[in-house]
């Protein structure tokens, strides 16, 4: 009874409702994005459009979404439309009262960005003293309010050898999920790439360790969203999507309504205020190319290509200008994945 399916609309939307932020993270992908924001009534109409198209969930981000003056009202409205509402936040503004308010507004899950188990490292990376302590406290407040929590950690040179410590930190703070995100080389991530990104060999070592932790840990779900872990034979068997999920399960909407395949691919394929979401999803040439990637270079002949489909499209595009190029993080060579 399980079948291949062509989705008629994205399952989830990552929605950067604002780009204002109280932090100065060294890898920020949206620091140079537009600060134009959709007016309240237009945004509400767009949420209705998204729900009507069949989208199941929206994950608000930014910027720091809690700096949006109408976030709670927006979340409540979206929740009332039947959308599952979640958010990624730096946690700075989440105190005990805010956590309860978020629960009442309909948030079912909140992800908190934490880059290191070490406060000084996290604070230095995020540019705000005390940010680690408040992020850690936010996890507790949210859990106490009955909101599922996750920790989002972008893997880079400050944390790639701290897998065990990060897992311990997540367990201590009752996080339901620990997301190890790959480093995308977008925005400041591109500008600071040489300082922060790992070599392909280092990525291999990291993923071996992370997969080992994922297999071992039963209490917390360790999530790895990088398609190149297929090289280690480790793609989630429950996932029906090969390669990146962007443009196959999800889309990104920017604060001005522009639609992009994901937050790290700066290619506008429509605008939610102007266009029909299902039509964009179905007819976009960019999405078509992402869904039908062709192996080039060392991907040609690689035994894992059908699983990883060249890895992260955003990274390939950012560093080579061609989404079909092999993911620059890939450690495989001459058609051999290991």
């Amino acid at each position, binding site marked *: 009874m399980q079948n*291949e399916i062509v989705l008629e609309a994205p399952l989830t939307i990552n929605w950067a409702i604002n780009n204002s932020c109280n932090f100065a993270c060294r890898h920020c992908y949206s620091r140079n994005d537009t600060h134009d924001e959709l007016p309240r009534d237009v945004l509400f109409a767009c949420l209705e459009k998204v729900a009507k198209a069949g989208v*199941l969930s929206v994950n608000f981000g930014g910027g720091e979404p809690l700096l949006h003056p109408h976030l709670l009202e927006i979340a409540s409205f979206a929740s009332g439309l039947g959308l599952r509402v979640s958010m990624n936040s730096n946690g700075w503004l989440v105190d005990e009262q805010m956590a309860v308010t978020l629960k009442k507004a309909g948030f079912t899950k909140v992800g908190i960005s934490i880059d290191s188990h070490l406060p000084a490292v996290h604070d230095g990376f995020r540019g705000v003293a005390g940010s680690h302590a408040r992020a850690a406290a936010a996890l507790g407040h949210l859990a106490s309010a009955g909101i599922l929590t996750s920790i989002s950690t972008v893997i880079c040179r400050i944390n790639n050898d701290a897998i065990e410590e990060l897992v311990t930190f997540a367990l201590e703070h009752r996080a339901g999920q620990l997301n190890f995100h790959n480093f995308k080389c977008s925005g400041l991530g591109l500008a600071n790439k040489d300082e922060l990104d790992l070599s392909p060999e280092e990525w291999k070592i990291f993923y071996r360790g992370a997969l080992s932790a994922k297999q071992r840990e039963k209490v917390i*779900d360790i999530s790895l969203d990088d398609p190149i872990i297929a090289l280690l034979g480790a793609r989630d068997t429950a996932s029906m999507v090969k390669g990146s999920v962007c443009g196959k399960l999800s889309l990104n909407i920017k604060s001005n309504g522009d639609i992009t395949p994901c937050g790290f691919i700066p290619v506008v394929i429509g605008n939610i205020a102007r266009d029909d979401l299902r039509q964009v999803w179905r007819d976009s040439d960019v999405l078509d190319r992402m869904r039908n990637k062709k192996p080039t270079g060392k991907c040609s002949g690689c035994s894992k290509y059908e699983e990883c489909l060249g890895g992260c499209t955003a990274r390939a595009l950012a560093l080579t200008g061609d989404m079909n190029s092999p993911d620059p993080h890939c450690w495989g060579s001459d058609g051999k994945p290991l």
Partner: protein
Amino acid sequence: MHNIHRNPNVMWREEVDALAEAQAGLECGDDIGDIGTAVLFSGGAMLSINVLGAEIWKLCDGRGIEEIVAELLEQFDVEEELLRSDVQAFLDDLTKKGFITYAE
């Protein structure tokens, strides 16, 4: 331990065009088993299911397997024992994925 419930954390929807295609095929007597008409989605895990799977999923509202089978027999022209076996296998898979739970 016989009542079957959908996990409320699982998001799901039926795909309108695919469902219309399957229903048209059903009326013509075509084999529509390969047409995915609904998608279940939870925590990064996704499952695409056909018309029969979707009907089973929708019936996981506190009923037991015998009630589900009885309901499906009214909708589908299929041999009862084969249907019961298919339903059990599908429910086992959903249980394994954490998409359904059994309760008293």
